């Protein structure tokens, strides 16, 4: 479809464009910026992963052969998967409710979603550090209600990271899902009801399948974003459950090991790009983005 409109307008505008500097020239400054300060640095870093300290694939062998590093990979995937799953579980009913709510109520929920999304990441992570600490509100509340005797360890572990990350990822799953559910024709569900489906059957056999592309796209996006997250895991997680981004930072900052840092960066990069390629292939480009 895109190709069609292109040729049509190309015919239309061709005589005008031939006389002025081409539009392609306009993209050159930005292209230069990206080539010099994006493509080149990343390329250099990746090159260093196979040249330092000695040429070869030694860094990758060490990275994929050590149980310590493999544990970091496993943990990264586990945390990302868990965060994605919980976000989807909470996000689906919220997106569904948003799509059919009276618009006044929906706009309040939207405002809060956007506020949370744009509030400084560190401010939000800090809030959870305070809320989840041993003497924090959550522990006090649980003790006050008589549910527990001793404060639960909620930060510097998997629980802390999962809560903090889910908090940050929720808007990124709700917004695209909302778009998809909104586009579903209510008549289809009426038809299902007329054909004798009860609510539960309509949900499982009509609404969920129709929303599936949105769920898959949103889930993939949250998963990929989680894989590369640095700040929240570093502040809410513990030493026992380090994530990949922290490992990369550690190689570079404290160990000054550029070879290993580059190798770990390449692994993260390849996984990320591969998953985005899946997303582009199956769901189009329109839902890419987020912060």
């Amino acid at each position, binding site marked *: 479809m895109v190709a069609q409109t292109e040729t049509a307008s190309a015919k239309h505008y061709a005589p*005008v464009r031939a006389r*002025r500097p*081409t*539009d392609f020239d306009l*993209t050159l*400054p*930005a292209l230069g*910026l990206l080539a010099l*300060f*994006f493509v080149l*640095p*990343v390329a*250099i*870093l990746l090159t260093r992963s196979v040249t330092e300290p000695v040429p070869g694939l030694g860094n990758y062998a060490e990275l994929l052969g050590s149980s310590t590093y493999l544990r970091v990979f496993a943990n990264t995937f586990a945390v990302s998967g868990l965060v994605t799953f919980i976000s989807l579980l*909470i996000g689906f009913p919220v997106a*569904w*409710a948003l799509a*059919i*709510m*009276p618009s006044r109520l929906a706009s309040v929920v939207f405002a*809060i979603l956007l*506020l*949370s999304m*744009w*509030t*400084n*990441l560190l*401010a*939000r992570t*800090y*809030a959870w*550090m*305070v*809320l989840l600490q041993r003497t924090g*509100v959550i522990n*006090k509340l649980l003790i006050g209600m008589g549910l527990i005797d001793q404060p639960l360890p909620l930060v510097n572990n998997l629980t802390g990271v999962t809560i903090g990350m889910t*908090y940050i990822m*929720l808007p990124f799953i709700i917004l695209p899902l909302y778009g998809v*559910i909104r586009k579903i024709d209510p008549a289809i*569900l009426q038809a299902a009801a007329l054909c004798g489906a009860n*609510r539960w059957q309509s949900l499982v056999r009509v*609404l969920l399948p129709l929303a599936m592309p949105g769920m898959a796209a949103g889930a993939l996006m949250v998963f*990929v974003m989680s894989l*590369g*997250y*640095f*700040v929240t895991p570093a*502040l809410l997680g513990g030493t026992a459950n380090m994530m990949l*981004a922290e490992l*990369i*930072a550690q190689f*570079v900052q404290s160990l000054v090991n550029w070879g290993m840092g*580059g190798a770990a*960066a390449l692994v993260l*990069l390849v996984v*990320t790009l591969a998953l*985005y390629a899946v997303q582009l292939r199956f769901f189009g480009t329109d839902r*890419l*983005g*987020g912060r």
Partner: protein
Amino acid sequence: MLLNFDRLGWWKLVLIGITLATTAFLLLPILFIAALSFGSSQWLIFPPPGWTLKWYQELLADPRWLQSAWTSFRIAIIVTVLSVLLGLVTSFGLTRGRFPFREALKALFLTPMILPVVVLAVALYAFFLQIGLNGTLTGFVISHLVLALPFSILSISSALEGFDKSIEDAAVLCGASPLEARIRVTLPAISHGIFSAAIFSFLTSWDEVVVAIFMSSPTLQTLPVKIWATLRQDLTPVVAAASTLLILLTVLLMLLVAVIRKGLKS
């Protein structure tokens, strides 16, 4: 009927319940931090035993906080201006141009948005070590510009795609030069896109922390890096005060966006 709010029956209550709970989950931590920033307890006890402004006084009395805020602000403003200018030029090229690999080029321009920030941070850090740009304002501006530009290109491109080019052509037919037509006809028509490009660019730079952690030096650090460094030591309520000011800024910018959008509609 599952998509008809009034005919959901008791399911309606469940959906509304989950939505309200989630909304509270998203909103309460933000309000909680704002409340604690006025609380008198050093240990962030909630509800606070008393109310005070001392954390704000401490924040404003410390030149390092002010300095890092000023650094952040300067960087964000420069990044915003450059990102909008560059985004504008690039968007014109991308939306109007008919050249091979246009889609691929567009994808390339958006890659910094999807690439894990830590990879870019480490790569730029290594590169800037070699050319001496770490810990400099230029280094910060360049790296934040790389991150902000995709948002700028996205906002302006989509505004430009929604603009009917024949209006610009009409201006040219009426005697305006092509450049004049773009500046005096097209730019005002896509001003909402330019405006959101500016807001997104500003917030991207202002809030950016991962690249800044690597880029900063003892003499030059941004506000998020200062918060980060403080948080690694303890949870002091001064951070609550700083966070509250940041939240306030976000609210103001969002209101500004809402007002402008409303103004456009009417």
